[in-house]
């Protein structure tokens, strides 16, 4: 079975703090993704990576950065957390092409910024 794990289920941070969210997958997937999910807005793509050290901006990259030093690990960084970054953060991974493009999601990290 595909397994995507996220470092924390719940996080509480203060405004201005630097926040690290980590994601690890065990299926040797090339692609990894970070989304945020907010009521009424659905899932929105923040960043994705199609290879080690490669990254692409998604729809809402402002205020975020990412790091992918190893194939199995993809980190989301909030450089200076703000209250409007309170959200559910979801990591996903997939193969690059063909019938295996299905994205598999981790359990999510619920972040509260005070």
């Amino acid at each position, binding site marked *: 079975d595909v397994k*995507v794990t996220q470092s924390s289920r719940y996080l509480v941070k203060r405004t201005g703090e630097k926040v690290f969210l980590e994601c690890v997958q065990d299926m040797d997937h090339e*692609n990894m*993704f970070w989304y945020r999910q907010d009521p*009424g*807005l*659905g*899932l929105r*793509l923040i960043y*994705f990576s*199609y290879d080690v050290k490669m990254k*692409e901006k*998604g729809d809402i990259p402002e205020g975020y950065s990412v790091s992918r030093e190893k194939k199995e690990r993809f980190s989301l960084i909030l450089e200076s957390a703000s209250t409007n970054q309170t959200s559910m953060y*979801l990591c996903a991974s*997939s193969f*690059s092409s063909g*019938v295996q*493009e*299905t*994205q*598999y*999601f*981790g*359990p*999510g990290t*619920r972040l509260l910024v005070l």
Partner: protein
Amino acid sequence: EDQVTQSPEALRLQEGESSSLNCSYTVSGLRGLFWYRQDPGKGPEFLFTLYSAGEEKEKERLKATLTKKESFLHITAPKPEDSATYLCAVLSLGGATNKLIFGTGTLLAVQP
């Protein structure tokens, strides 16, 4: 612009009362359509991938179908444990590689 719309936003069924959820899409070319189930406070769980019009897939009480403009998720004789939010997403030929476009989901409640 690529777009995915799900309806209804919410649906309440009695146990055993079959129904369908709708996902309509507008994309420049479909690479794949995906259905997920999401329980409260958890990540989406993959259900089905459909690639071409006329394709159907089944899993227990769920059956997904695809036409050129929409997909249906049919739920036959649902049970309370089928209660969840069901998400639809598409991969577009004209879009960025592997960028999924999600609908906002249908919240299904099945009452005993």
